[in-house]
């Protein structure tokens, strides 16, 4: 990664709403966690990053999302950001509707209701998150992510600890929402099947400190076909 090239790319990325990640290193208290990690995601692309737990996937996501700013390197990201966390991370003291509208102040009452409808929570607008099942809370978190028309969507193990049926519902919902909104999407998971279904490109985080390796197993075309198949369904 030559510096002038990175800078030029970053400028081009901003113009096109691209996400450009060029991390040189990340350490926690002297222990290196991430080595050089570089990739870019264009609008409409879904990049999946696979890797075993503890490898540094969440650390990478937090850097890309701007939550963790203590690293070497640079990240260029568009303005409108959305993230779906491992947990729903809702405001338990506010209603489902307010959970959307407080996070997205520009969202009208009717648009917020439509967003709830879209994830099958149309009649739950007044409910507090504690009154929803875990699956419903996850769908509310998904609605929150898409309600802001994100240019970059970050998914951190979004289907973990769900029963297979709920996970499948969530996966289909995510697939169709991505197809509609076409954000640049970064998905981190340890489940190969999820990655193969959602992603247009798969990278693997390996080693210590972790670096990226191009994934050989699921072909790019295969993943694409599958995604489009679901879009039509």
């Amino acid at each position: 990664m030559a510096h002038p090239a990175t800078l030029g790319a970053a400028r081009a990325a901003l113009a096109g709403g691209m996400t450009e990640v060029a991390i040189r290193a990340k350490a926690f208290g002297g222990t290196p966690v991430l080595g050089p990690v570089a990739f870019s995601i264009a609008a409409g692309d879904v990049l999946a990053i696979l890797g075993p737990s503890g490898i540094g996937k969440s650390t990478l996501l937090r850097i890309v999302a701007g939550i963790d700013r203590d690293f070497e390197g640079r990240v260029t990201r568009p303005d409108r950001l959305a993230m779906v966390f491992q947990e729903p991370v809702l405001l338990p003291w506010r209603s489902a509707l307010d959970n959307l509208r407080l996070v997205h102040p520009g969202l009208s009452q009717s648009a917020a209701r439509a967003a709830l409808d879209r994830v099958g929570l149309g009649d739950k607008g007044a409910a507090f998150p504690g009154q929803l099942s875990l699956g419903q809370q996850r769908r509310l978190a998904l609605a929150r992510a898409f309600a802001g028309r994100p240019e970059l969507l970050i998914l951190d193990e979004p289907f973990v600890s769900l029963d297979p049926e709920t996970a499948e519902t969530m996966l289909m919902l995510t697939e169709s929402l991505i197809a509609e909104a076409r954000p640049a999407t970064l998905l981190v998971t340890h489940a190969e099947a999820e990655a193969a279904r959602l992603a247009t490109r798969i990278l693997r985080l390996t080693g210590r400190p972790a670096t990226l390796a191009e994934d050989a197993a699921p072909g790019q075309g295969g993943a694409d076909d599958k995604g489009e198949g679901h879009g039509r369904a």
Partner: protein
Amino acid sequence: MSPEARGTGALSLAALLGLWAVAALLTGDAMILPAPWELVAPLLQEVRSGELPRHLGATLGRVIAAFLLAMSIGVALGLVMGRSARADRWLDPWLVVFLNLPALVVIVLCYLWIGLTEVAAILAVSLNKIPNVATVLREGARALSPDLDAMARVYAMPARTRLRHVILPQLAPYIAGAARSGVALIWKIVLVVEFLGRSNGIGFQIHMYFQLFDVAMVLVYALSFIAVMLVVEWRILQPWERRVRRWRAA
């Protein structure tokens, strides 16, 4: 509060009154400990003459002013100290000093330095309470959810929305705790402040009746303010807490 809980509260207060009545009967000297019913006449007399409402109002005003001042500064200070390890390292020794500074010393110094004024009185009371509020709120700020923090950051929530809808709801139990113990402490210190250097308020009246050795009037004034605080607790604090905790029960 359920009707049953309210009933228990009333019964418990009645038991306290009963205990007092028994003690008064055993003492047998109204000069030292009058029975509860012996306070009714002096109470009515003070209410009719307008003395009690006037002094009660003065004390209540000071309590409210000192409470608002102590809570807002204490909450802000606690929040900063709980969020920033650096600020905590700098301010913690101050906190320890002020926590252990006797209320009487603060009051006397405020009167000596500022003069026997309302400002000095309210400042002295607030200074006594601020370290307390800050200590409680620091614990609250340390317990703030990092996940919600990350969420608010990713979605770029505006600072005011974040404070009101993300941070304050998490601090609500700590604020309620500090407020409850705060009101009780503040009213006690306000009395001392009035005792030492004001010309109205319940503390001033108690000072006067102390010199006249009038136990009944001392009790009338003290109990009337306690009655006000019970009403505040039942009519304002508890309903507010119930509203804030609605989402937990739901």
